[in-house]
């Protein structure tokens, strides 16, 4: 569809590439507004957090904050948060991928648009409203709980509770699955129907197409979407805060307590050190994402 070579020639056929610095200038100018915006409203605040994580309460340089951040209970919190991220990502990515595939391949244009819009809105739910929705539905006296009981299913027969790591993962799926649908749909869309038809013409069955062509093509995008979901679940804050009263050790909650809590009042910079720790973990997850995306985007042109 897109033929990148043409764009380097202007209408008169002369090369628009021009000099190397001219080309670079064009690149810089094009991305400048976005970079400026993100720079001022995102990277600069983030930088100030990084900076103060190295300060103690009187402004002097210290590594103490990081020392404490690596001890308990923060270590358990990091481990819990990473676990939460991974499990939430996997359990949401699979249904999300399936939904994305089915909608993309069998849905009408209108349906696809509708699903995209709904997913966008659902992906932003969180915090107290979301927590309450789930409590009203699946809580001890919830209407969905009662409904399921009418069908003979008692979700509280075992030790299940909404206010645990498992419960939080369950509630997270409400916005994680739509997020997956949003980020994975472009990849599915890229599986050209022409390829499926071409494979059929060459004698392949549907299963063979998928095994040899479809899945290998979708796999990188699936993994990269998974990593993105991990980062989102790992850093989610408002919902976990609304669902548990501190009984599940999670890093964003600890940061919130240090910054906004009533009990420990003088360790804001520790909170910032923890935030930097989160940034590092997220970046570690993002690097494979970018590498895979770079490869996969070739197929999406």
């Amino acid at each position, binding site marked *: 569809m897109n033929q990148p070579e043409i764009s380097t020639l202007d209408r008169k056929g002369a090369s628009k590439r021009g000099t190397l610095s001219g080309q670079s200038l064009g690149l810089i100018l094009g991305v400048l507004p976005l970079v400026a915006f993100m720079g001022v409203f995102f990277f600069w605040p983030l930088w100030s957090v990084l900076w103060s994580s190295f300060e103690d309460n009187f402004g002097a340089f210290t590594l103490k904050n990081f020392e404490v951040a690596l001890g308990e209970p923060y270590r358990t919190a990091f481990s819990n948060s990473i676990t939460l991220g991974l499990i939430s990502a996997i359990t949401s990515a699979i249904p999300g991928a399936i*939904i994305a595939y089915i909608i993309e391949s*069998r849905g009408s244009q209108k349906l696809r648009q509708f699903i995209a819009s709904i997913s966008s809105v659902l992906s932003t739910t969180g915090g107290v409203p979301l927590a309450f929705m789930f409590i009203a539905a699946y809580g001890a006296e919830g209407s969905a709980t009662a409904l399921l009981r009418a069908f003979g299913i008692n979700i509280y027969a075992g030790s299940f509770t909404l206010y645990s790591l498992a419960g939080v993962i369950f509630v997270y799926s409400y916005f994680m699955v739509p997020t997956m649908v949003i980020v994975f749909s472009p990849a599915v869309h890229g599986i050209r129907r022409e390829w499926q038809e071409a494979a059929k013409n060459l004698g392949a069955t549907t299963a063979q197409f998928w095994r040899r062509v479809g899945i290998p093509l979708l796999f990188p995008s699936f993994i990269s979407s998974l990593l993105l979901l991990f980062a989102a679940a790992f850093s989610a804050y408002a919902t976990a805060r609304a669902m548990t009263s501190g009984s599940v050790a999670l890093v964003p909650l600890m940061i919130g307590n240090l910054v906004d809590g009533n009990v420990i009042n003088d360790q804001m910079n520790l909170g910032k050190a923890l935030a930097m720790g989160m940034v590092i973990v997220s970046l570690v997850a993002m690097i494979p994402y970018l590498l895979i995306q770079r490869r996969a985007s070739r197929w999406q042109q």
Partner: protein
Amino acid sequence: MVFSKLKSLPLFLTLLIAGLFVLLPLGSSAEFSLRQPTKQNHGFDNYVWFISQPEFGHYMGVSFSLAAVSALILLVLLVPTVVWLNLKGQKLRPFVDFITLMPLVIPVVALAIGAQNSLPEFAQTNQFILSFLYAVLAMPYAYRTLDTGLKAIPLQTISEAARGLGANWFRTIVRVITPIIRGTVLSALFMTLALSFGEYTITSLLHWDTFTTWVTVISQANVMGAIALSVFSLVAIFIFLLLVGLFIKPAASQVAKEEE
């Protein structure tokens, strides 16, 4: 609209199951909000209560204007950038992908503290600083949505045609490209609106007073009213979405059909 049963079954099942999953929690809290315990029945008392609160109009206005400005910032910033990215900026795609992804992976709390510490005084006294921060939060989704939408149309052809007919870049983007990706733009718009309306963490940490902080205050005086308010803010967006979805034809379908 006749499909063969075999083809439509997976779609039907998917929509059913996904629909149930989405609607059960929403429906439960909606049912809860309609309860009228003192009268032992269901009705709209709680909704009437919060709509008749004197501050309701004020807070709706505040949150709505913040959301609108947020959406505007994102569209004005992203549409030209993503157009450029798809036409001439291919090289910087990984870079742009990365920086637009960052807000998703950083805890909101960290951004809030950072904004508090670093932004100058004049920025902190104007409530529209929130619009800029909401735009940052919405960036990952908005960018991806717009990018997907622009990749689905023959952008190269369209823009060259428009330019060939004499339009400058501004006209091309505003009058030609944007209408074509109407559906995508609306998607991004809704998402930004939903996010801005529901955002609490940054709003309260930066001492501002919007719809969501007001709901928290109200919940101390009237729990049922607060619940109705939360349901209202979620459901209102959905209804809005449905209405728009029903009436806006996805214009890209014309172009897509030609492709197929």
